[in-house]
């Protein structure tokens, strides 16, 4: 069999090099995209996990809470417990570097606790000239120790978004840092030799003092007593913990992060899967056409005694070979893509989940084998139907000369029922609830819709083609007639187009809706004239009452409203929850979709629970919070604030595109009353009539020092946000482009194959007086018509998929709603360019038909 296999089947792949190469490449692209997404993600998670291990060291458990830290009162309680052999308190500061856009992660540590728990963070003092205060170098509050990476990084000047260069933060052995709105310098007293990450270590007391975090810890790393398991300790210690704190094993940090990025990652993997699916369609097209062309060859082989199963196996081997080769190429390409991604965009897949990590590409044999198998599967499945069809041909009939040249093309007449059936199932799938935040029903509906669109292609052709019959030109008529008579050809050639157009159109509609909604949303949430912040919410810069008073005193400032943003840990399942403390009205907008900015009149009895909820302070929750917790206006919301559980009454639900994991807004006064936290992250300024934003900004910069504040006009924030938005979707655009390319391959391979089978037809037409150009035009029109059908089906499917993406996938993955905004112009441009491209591609692929001598062509029987 193997010699036969080689000569009859595999060799056939080499004879049709273009088609084989294109299907191979399509599979390779699908495999590469999927693999690259996996590789990038697992490398980023690995890198993050490595970083966590470095920081967690030998800790068995970590106590974590709100990102801004928690009251250190729990520290002596835990440290004194018998289960705990050592408790190492850590205060992590994201220190703002004045004038620069990067931050330094400083670990404020207790040297005496470090050695047994986090030995990798042990500092080592450098030999400095000034010996007087180096006696307790690692205890001195003004000393800081830098890892090699941090030192290298901080010694460099940094190019800012504005294009200017900021000076190195580390100069003359001193590191300038910002706390609040003031700068101070720490002396670099040595290194952190074992830390292979960009971080700094200093004494915890110095960190608390310098960054005004007295009494606050970010983490307590625990080493448990001998014989105490992490599980036992979690149980016995849990009762001691105030609300909002959680004990977890250090590895949980990485899996938590993995959870946070999961929805986005699944999204990308789905795109890759569609690319692979399109590749599978392509194999189907080329194999089908190849089988059609070799019909008589197979009939002869059967007549000569080849078993049906041998034939089937031979053909499947062809598909598997294409799949394997494509898979191998894809694996190589995927690693290349991942490496390139690490080099140019870092490991966060463009969505910012892993910002700052520098992952290393790792070879994962299981993953590679998995994707190779996927490639092979695409090849084999794509070949299955054509192979079965070929093996069923009755040899005698196929051998008879003069049988129709496209006998064997799928007879897909009248089959609207399966397509519509799939659509109905897709509709039902949309009702399914998400599984672990993964909208499986939604993704299922997307796949079903795609399949339905392909199946309905002939139906659509029958509906659309009569409308196009008007054409007068002979080429048009012939092309039209051919497509009308053989909708099967449209399926074969257009399936890839349908899938890719559907995907691209769906993404375009979804992204456009999203972008328009985000833009509207930004306009709503940023109604003030000027915004001021000292650093991002978890950074070391902040505003206080004094700073506010200074801002208010600047001439031209009419009113100032403030925001305090803190990230809470609600539970192990909800590791990231944002509380915004700010006025509901005023210089910050709130895009409410339910409720009002007033306290709700009606309070749900179910939540009363014996308490008088009417007295509870109001809270406005984001859509994600409403979705995840299944609560609405009038319900009760409980949050761990200031180490206690606090209750609120939900007054409204607002749209929030910034915080996928849930947020709640409460009044500043309520927040301060409950927590005593007076810090302010952002201030929104409305100007007095007649004042100029630029003048006020200049006055603020002069007062506080330009390097201590970021001052932005709402327009700038909007532009920046949209820029980030576009960057996030860049990778999806790339993947769409690849899929569209694969769809065009489908046109190319089909027409290349058809050109060979239709040589007789073209020869006859040449005899009748067609010029070569006429033939080219005919093929181009056929290509364009085929693509048009694919595009029409694709656009219809795309619209449906866009709806699924917006209403099901986004709602369930990210919990945000958006208003539909169809980019008509872009879609029209895309559709028409695709049709033109298809015409070109078909024309190029069919070039062979025009080269051949017309005289010989009419003679050829096969």
């Amino acid at each position, binding site marked *: 069999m193997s010699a036969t296999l080689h000569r009859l089947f595999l060799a056939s792949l080499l004879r049709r090099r273009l088609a084989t190469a294109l299907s191979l490449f399509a599979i390779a692209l699908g495999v590469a995209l999927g693999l690259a997404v996996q590789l990038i993600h697992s490398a980023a998670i690995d890198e993050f996990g490595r970083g966590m291990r470095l920081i967690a060291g030998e800790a068995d458990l970590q106590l974590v809470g709100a990102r801004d830290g928690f009251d250190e009162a729990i520290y*002596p309680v835990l440290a004194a417990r018998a289960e705990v052999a050592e408790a190492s308190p850590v205060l992590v500061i994201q220190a703002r570097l004045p004038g620069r856009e990067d931050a330094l992660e400083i670990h404020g540590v*207790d040297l005496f606790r470090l050695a047994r728990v986090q030995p990798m963070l042990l500092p080592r003092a450098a*030999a400095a000239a000034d010996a007087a205060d180096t*006696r*307790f170098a690692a205890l001195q*509050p003004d000393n800081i120790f830098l890892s090699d990476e941090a030192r290298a990084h901080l010694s460099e000047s940094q190019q800012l978004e504005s294009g200017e260069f900021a000076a190195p933060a580390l100069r003359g052995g001193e590191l300038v840092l910002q706390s609040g709105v003031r700068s101070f310098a720490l002396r670099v007293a040595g290194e952190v030799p074992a830390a292979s990450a960009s971080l700094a270590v200093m*004494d915890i007391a110095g960190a608390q003092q310098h960054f005004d975090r007295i009494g606050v810890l970010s983490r307590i790393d625990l080493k448990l007593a*001998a014989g105490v398991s992490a599980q036992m300790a979690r149980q016995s210690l849990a009762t001691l913990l105030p609300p909002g704190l959680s004990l977890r094993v250090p590895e949980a940090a990485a899996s938590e992060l993995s959870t946070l990025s999961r929805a986005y990652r699944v999204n990308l993997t789905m795109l890759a899967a569609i690319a692979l699916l399109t590749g599978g369609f392509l194999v189907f097209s080329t194999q089908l056409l190849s089988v059609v062309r070799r019909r008589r060859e197979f009939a002869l082989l059967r007549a000569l005694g080849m078993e049906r199963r041998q034939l089937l196996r031979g053909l499947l081997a062809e598909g598997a070979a294409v799949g394997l080769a494509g898979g191998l190429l894809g694996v190589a390409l995927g690693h290349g893509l991942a490496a390139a991604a690490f080099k140019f965009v870092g490991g966060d897949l463009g969505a910012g989940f892993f910002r700052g990590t520098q992952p290393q590409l790792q070879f994962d044999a299981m993953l590679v084998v998995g994707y190779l198998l996927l490639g092979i599967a695409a090849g084999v499945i794509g070949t299955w139907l054509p192979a079965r069809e070929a093996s069923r041909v009755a040899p005698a009939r196929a051998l008879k000369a003069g049988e129709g040249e496209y006998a064997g093309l799928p007879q897909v007449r009248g089959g609207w029922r399966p397509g519509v059936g799939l659509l109905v199932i897709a509709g039902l799938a949309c009702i399914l609830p998400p599984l672990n935040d993964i909208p499986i029903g939604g993704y299922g509906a997307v796949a079903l819709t795609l399949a339905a669109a392909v199946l309905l292609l002939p139906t659509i052709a029958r509906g659309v083609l009569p409308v196009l019959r008007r054409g007068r030109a002979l080429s048009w008529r012939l092309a039209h007639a051919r497509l009308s008579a053989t909708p099967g050809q449209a399926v074969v050639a257009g399936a890839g187009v349908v899938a890719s157009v559907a995907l691209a159109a769906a993404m375009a509609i979804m992204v456009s809706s999203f972008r328009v909604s985000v833009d509207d949303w930004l306009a709503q949430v940023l109604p003030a004239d000027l915004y001021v912040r000292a650093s991002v919410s978890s950074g070391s810069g902040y505003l206080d009452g004094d700073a506010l008073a200074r801002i208010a005193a600047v001439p031209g400032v009419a009113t100032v409203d403030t925001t305090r943003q803190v990230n809470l840990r609600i539970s192990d399942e909800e590791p990231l929850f944002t509380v915004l403390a700010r006025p509901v009205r005023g210089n910050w907008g709130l895009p409410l979709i339910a409720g009002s900015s007033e306290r709700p009149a009606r309070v749900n009895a179910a939540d009363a629970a014996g308490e008088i909820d009417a007295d509870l302070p109001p809270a406005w929750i984001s859509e994600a919070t409403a979705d995840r917790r299944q609560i609405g206006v009038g319900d009760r919301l409980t949050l761990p604030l200031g180490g206690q559980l606090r209750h609120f009454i939900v007054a409204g639900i607002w749209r929030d595109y910034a915080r996928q994991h849930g947020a709640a807004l409460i009044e500043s006064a309520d927040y301060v009353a409950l927590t005593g936290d007076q810090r302010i992250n952002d201030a929104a300024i409305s100007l007095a009539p007649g004042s100029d934003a630029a003048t006020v900004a200049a006055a603020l910069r002069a007062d506080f020092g330009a390097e201590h504040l970021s001052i932005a006009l709402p327009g700038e924030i909007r532009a920046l946000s949209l820029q980030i938005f576009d960057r996030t979707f860049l990778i999806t655009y790339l993947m769409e482009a690849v899929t569209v390319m694969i769809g065009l391959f489908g046109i190319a391979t089909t027409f290349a194959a058809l050109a060979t089978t239709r040589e007789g037809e073209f020869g006859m037409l040449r005899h009748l007086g067609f010029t070569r150009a006429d033939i080219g035009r005919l093929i181009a029109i056929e290509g364009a018509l085929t693509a048009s059908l694919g595009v029409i089906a694709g656009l219809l499917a795309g619209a449906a998929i866009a709806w699924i993406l917006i209403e099901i996938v986004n709602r369930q993955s990210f919990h945000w709603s958006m208003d539909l905004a169809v980019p008509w112009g872009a879609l029209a441009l895309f559709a028409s360019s695709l049709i033109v491209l298809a015409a070109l591609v078909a024309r190029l692929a069919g070039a062979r038909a025009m080269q051949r001598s017309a005289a010989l062509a009419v003679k050829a029987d096969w």
Partner: protein
Amino acid sequence: MMDTRKDAQQRGFCNASAVIGRRCAALLWAALLAVLVPAPLLAADVAPAQASYPPVLAGKALSFPHDLGAHPDYRTEWWYITGWLHDAAGEERGFQLTFFRVRTLIGEDNPSRFAPSQLILAHAAVADPATGRLRHAERAARAYPELAEAATGTTQVGVGGWSLRTDGGAPDSDRAPYRTHIDAQDFAFDLVFEPGRAPLLNGREGFSQKAPDPINASYYYSRPQLRTAGTLRLDGERFAVKGHAWLDHEWSSEILPAAASGWDWIGINLHDGGSLMLFQMRDAEGRAMWAAGTLGDKAGKARKFAADEVRFEPLRHWTSPRTGVRYPVEWRLHLADGRTLQLRPLLDDQELDSRSSTGAVYWEGAVRLFEAQADGGEREIGQGYLEMTGYAERLNM
């Protein structure tokens, strides 16, 4: 290059110990710093005491029970207990525990509870002839309420779950018993110490000069003949134990001269109910540069020995198979009252080798004291502890 570095390390080690004070755990603390701070920096520690440490002056009267507690203004302070224990089977073992307080002058203006202005350190060891070596462990922390503290007014000091405090019905009396809890990996003990008599002041009414210059001095009292009972755990095995112990409490700001390289110290409970404390300071050549002692009787009356009234004579050396350091483990002691005494160790190997953790290497162990008899024989007259420091670095030279 290498030589310079090595030399610097040795000097650093030596000088750090000199700054901080007397005994073993001072070395431990020095060693801890040596891990964190390269030696050349420590070499600079011979800088004069900062003005904010109060000087130790003669003539200041100690008052009890207040002076049982901590004196956080002074640079260094320790509570140091050594003793002998025997179990029901008659097995004899030595034990030692020390709590240190160090004032760093760092972060005294810092409202953070983590401010490292006071450090608390502890060290404990058990000498068990059955295992032939010392078991020891240490703790170190910055002072933090409830976790690491040295209280004033009464003895109450703790770090990392270890503690030493006065206990019993009369906490305000200077006769109140002490209670300690030490729990390390391969040993633990819970002991109660009954003083039975008032503190015994060393030197001039508690002013103990350490070197020819009186600036090098400490406030120093001892609690000899502590009746001791409690439990001892060795690995998994628990014993009810009884015995006698000795407590030193000493605080100072500038205890040692720069020229000192090490010291030898003994604290012996005499079988007649009396007590003997002797120490000598050695210079870089190993010669005694200062010495002193206190001989107490059963009633607590003391005879003080001045620097020229005490002489240490090494008799027999033992070389550590681990570190190669050679220690004089048997001594002859010459006292001004004409008595000649001999010290013999409970076991030779009572070397404290913590190179793997703090890096400190010294000898501290249970010893018996013998006195020559008129008949030519000798008689055991007491049991106690001997501490010898500063031998390791000399060997390395």
